[in-house]
């Protein structure tokens, strides 16, 4: 019995890392929900965000949280372009062609990053990155708190965008009934481009937020893609609130597993949970059983 304080410490650690997982997952989920496209290049966009933050920090001295203001719009634009040039041609084709094309895009992105930045891991050092604050006997890392805060702001923003704006309604309408959406005059191809852009903006934002916490490695994208999948499957593919639940859950499962079982199997805990959910409740833990969005 290790007592309550370490448990709470671990729980908070899991929740904080889970918040970032949620941010990575939510973009993937949004894209799937609206377009039925599984984006295998998602993790590579996260890496793209990390490298952008590093470049801006090294070249211009921009704090990563400031470079969010550049990275998110950049992600949006790149996403729109990728969707228009590549994915739009394939959206109506059945089968796995979009899956393959995004897999290929991911390889292209990671190798271009590799050519430009080399294999050497890159990071930025921020003095506040190792600070912590104590709260009720629990030590909370400042950088992760900021990351959690930014995640909260971004996801809340996304939520407001989807529920409170004309555009958001159009996005949800396209997700729920594409034919119906077209009949009321929604330009669904444009919505698709927009959604892909938003998804990529979120992925790149996640990368920027991760930059002060982790190292950027060109080939690490695939592991973020996998995390994003786990998050969205746990929460229900296509469900934005589900992605938040899934992200937090994954963070806690991994953190607790690593703390109390074996740290070598850390990634396996998430994958086991993922397989279980896939087999027993493919609509996700937080999805509704009857209707698909």
């Amino acid at each position, binding site marked *: 019995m290790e007592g309550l304080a370490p448990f709470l410490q671990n729980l908070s650690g899991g929740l904080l890392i889970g918040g970032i997982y949620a941010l990575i997952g939510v973009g993937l989920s949004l894209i799937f929900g609206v377009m039925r496209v599984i984006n295998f290049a998602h993790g590579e966009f996260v890496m793209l965000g990390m490298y952008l933050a590093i470049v801006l920090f090294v070249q211009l001295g921009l704090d990563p949280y400031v470079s969010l203001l550049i990275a998110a719009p950049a992600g949006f634009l790149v996403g729109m372009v990728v969707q228009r040039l590549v994915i739009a041609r394939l959206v109506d084709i059945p089968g796995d062609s979009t899956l393959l094309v995004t897999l290929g895009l991911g390889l292209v992105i990671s190798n271009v990053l590799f050519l430009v930045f080399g294999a050497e891991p890159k990071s930025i050092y921020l003095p506040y990155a190792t600070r912590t604050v104590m709260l009720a006997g629990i030590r909370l890392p400042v950088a992760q708190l900021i990351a959690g805060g930014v995640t909260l702001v971004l996801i809340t923003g996304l939520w407001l965008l989807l529920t409170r704006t004309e555009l958001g309604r159009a996005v949800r*309408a396209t997700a*729920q009934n594409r034919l*119906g959406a077209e009949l009321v*005059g929604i330009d669904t191809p444009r919505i698709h481009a927009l959604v892909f852009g938003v998804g990529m903006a979120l992925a790149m934002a996640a990368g920027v937020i991760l930059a002060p916490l982790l190292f950027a490695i060109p080939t690490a994208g695939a592991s973020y893609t996998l995390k994003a999948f786990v998050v969205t499957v746990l929460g229900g593919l296509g469900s934005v609130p589900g992605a938040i639940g899934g992200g937090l859950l994954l963070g806690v499962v991994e953190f607790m597993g690593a703390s109390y079982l074996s740290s070598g199997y850390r990634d396996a805990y998430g994958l086991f949970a993922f397989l279980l959910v896939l087999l027993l409740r493919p609509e996700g833990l937080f999805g509704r059983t009857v209707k698909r*969005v």
Partner: protein
Amino acid sequence: MSEAPGAQRVLEVIDADLGYGDLQVVFGVSLHVHRGELVGLVGGNGSGKSTILRAISGMIRPRGGSILLEGEEVGGLEPHALALRGLAHVPMGRQLFPDMTVEENLSLGAYLPPARERRAEGFARVYELFPDLHTKRREAAGALSGGQQQMVAIGRALMLHPKVLIMDEPSLGLAPLLVREVMQVIRRVADTGMPILLVEQNVTQVLKIADRAYVLENGRLVLDGPTEQLRGDPMIRRAYLGL
């Protein structure tokens, strides 16, 4: 409400040939809807009703003939371009957004900019026509009964302040009691002066509420005229039952 001489034609289909791939379904059909008129288009299974409607609403491209909206050619335009020009479509199966509230569904009916500016007016008009929807405006559309969902679909179309409304089989999948209710609703909408083209299998009901009707058989028009003349015409029986 029969045809007034010289009344303007809001919607007109002239000599349309329609089909899918190498299959022709509709052969040289012409029809029109005047201002303030409720026109029925009836016929048995597979007679080509829905195909005509799909062509009018831009979901398929006509291979021959023309489609005019207030005298302008609109054949081959995309659905949202047609919506911009004032053609509202109540589709088969209603095509609502099930997880969104009634109000959101209606609101999306006025998605296009010209209608967006008159959204408040649209809500007022729809809620006046369908007070039930007002009480249920915060509920998810998917949770409503079939009849109420049909009202939402019609209401959503009206939010566009359309010049003409086309409806595809609004009675499909509804129990007999609800069918009657929906038909009365449609008549009520027509009574506000909204021109409507109603495509329907349920000929008895159409002949009761419509001003005029066209009867299709195997992709060709076999009968048309004011509904009071058509009721009891044996041709209708033949068109439907193949006897």
